[in-house]
């Protein structure tokens, strides 16, 4: 099996995991699927150099390791802890039903492949699937963000969206300085950490995590 084939397979799996997240109603399952997706993505930075027949450089290793530590271990751990200590374990009555959201998600995937066809890359990419998969991951994350009510699911939606940006960033590993990449990872972590704190406060304040009760602020 060539590295090319593996990269393509991983990217396809990433899309399938996205659809799986849309279909799952259990909060913990969503977090675990996200962790699995990030695990797959963490190895992709190494792919490019392996493809060219070199041994992976330090830069790619650090990015992979950082992703592994943050998105596979730390962030899922925090989120699972919040879910475990609370009483709510399921997403109930989302704005868009589970089946319907998978259907919409599939349409978005088709749409992003269509858009990506019209955006020819100026260079030769690791895999031709990178742009469409990045776009569809982004859109599916956004779909999760707007269609679900539980604060935790919205956080997962944001994280999936961020994974989409990460996939596109794979094209640019050689250009982005390591310092900047680490800054991005750090900011992501602090952001999620703050979100977790706010989710915790929402639960304490309202006794649950529904964000649709957050509607006191509007025009009178």
């Amino acid at each position, binding site marked *: 099996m060539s590295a090319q084939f593996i990269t393509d397979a991983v990217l396809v799996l990433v899309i399938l995991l996205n659809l799986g997240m849309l279909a799952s109603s259990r909060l913990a399952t969503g977090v675990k699927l996200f962790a699995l997706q990030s695990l797959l993505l963490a190895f992709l930075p190494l792919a490019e150099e392996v493809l060219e027949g070199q041994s992976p450089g330090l830069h790619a290793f650090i990015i992979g390791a950082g992703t592994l530590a943050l998105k596979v271990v730390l962030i899922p751990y925090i989120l699972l802890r919040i879910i475990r200590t609370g009483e709510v374990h399921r997403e109930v009555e989302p704005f868009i039903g589970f089946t319907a959201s998978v259907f919409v998600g599939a349409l978005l995937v088709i749409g992003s492949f269509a858009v990506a066809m019209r955006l020819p890359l*100026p260079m030769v990419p690791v895999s031709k699937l990178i742009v469409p998969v990045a776009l569809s991951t982004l859109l599916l994350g956004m779909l999760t963000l707007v269609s679900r009510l539980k604060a935790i699911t919205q956080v997962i939606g*944001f994280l999936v969206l*961020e994974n989409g940006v990460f996939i596109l*960033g794979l*094209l640019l590993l050689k250009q982005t300085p390591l310092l900047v990449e680490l800054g991005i990872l750090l900011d992501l972590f602090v952001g999620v950490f703050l979100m977790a704190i706010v989710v915790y406060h929402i639960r304490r304040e*309202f006794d649950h995590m529904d964000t649709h009760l957050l509607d*006191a*602020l509007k025009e009178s």
Partner: protein
Amino acid sequence: MTLFLLVAVPLVFGALCLVLPTSPLRMAALVAGAWAHLAVVIRSWPSVETPLRDDFLGLDPLGHLFLTLISALFAATSVYFVGYHRKRLISQRVFQACILALLSALSLLCISQHLGLLWVALESASLAVTPLIYFRLGPRALEATWKFLLMNSVGVALALLGIFCVAIATTCQRNPVALTIADLVRNAAQLDRTWLRVGFLLGLVGFGTKMGLAPLHSWKPDAYGEAPPPVAALMAGGMTLGAFAGLLRMFQVCAAAGLSAFAGSWLIVFGLISIGTAAVFIVGNNDYRRILAYTSVEHMGVLVVGVGLGSAGSYASMLHAMHNMLNKGAMFFLAGFIWRIYESNEIRAVRGTLIRSPLAGVLLLAALCATCGLPPFGMFFSELGIVLAAAQTGRWWVLGIFVLTLAVVFVGVMTALLPMVFGDLPENSSVSEAELPSHRWRRWTMLGAATALLALGFGLGAYQPHAVRDALARAADSVCRPQAEFVTLARTAEVQP
């Protein structure tokens, strides 16, 4: 060295705020940190160093101008905060440390020449401000914080995507291009146009969310309404400028690549939608801080419309950025003062400020005139400049919509807020804590900070020193003609050694 100090000084004082034992000492550290930063900034004028193509940090005209504005606002706010704070508030340490961390992040944003670094700084700034919004605790503040955090996180993620797209646009070249503004501008002609356009649009949406351009402004009234007023002043006058700087960096690259017509028309569209949205929501609103938030949406719209209109408009836009900082600072300072006296956010409950506190009444009246762009306050000149720029370039429909929506905003703000200045005192008004004689120094500090900003706005509107005009013109020039700017700079840099 200066660049290092700009980021490090606030951080050091912020750390001091965390460890100092007593409240007055911490307050002193906050003020000292903000003013030390201002001192470093003032010493850095006039800038002689020019950012080269490999420099990640540097003081270019645009960043230098915005850095100065932000630093001045923080200095005024630190003084205001001395009068505003109350001892019984817990977690004061975290609050002050976050303010100084915000200053540090915004400084980094202004001086960073690398798009990726700029993104990191912007995200750090929004993370530093999140605890500040939740400072008052309670369900309403929580809701505002959640909306802010989620919308801004998505916004900055899209901005990062936009920056990545610009980076992809550089890959068609054989020799690698660093993502610094100088290098991008120099090689702009060879960038891939399609990806550059996609990048700019994503950047516009991303940075636009952070600035609060409609239709991505919905976090803004909530956050400005629920955050403590000094924090709202920092966000409306400082953080929005930071996001605007990010947007302008993207615009610089587009302008250098010959896409300024494309980018400009999108800026105009978003700007006009913002002013229109603000006009719709201001009329009939009953919460004065939310109204101020909508005027901020309006002024952000004015800023981007100005840049979209080309070089004359860009100058007006830079002028507007300066006066927006002065005006939003003063306005939210006064809102905080009124909130301390009346202890209500509702316009209905606030009547007769002129009787209850004459100085505050006069200042509020002046600030209202400044917000609505009445002469001789500076916003009159900047908005007039944009109208003239629209006329010069022959965009009559832009001119028409711009004037019409501004007129609606004017009527809306005046009818809503003038009764707060005049009118009779509410019957059952009790004396609030801030009005006690022992709190006189607090009142003077708060109003003093507001007066200083308003007087500056008045003075710079009536008379513009040569140095200020020069700084604004150079910043505007570097936005709409980045190539010329960097070429001349590179030439002088070559001659000097």
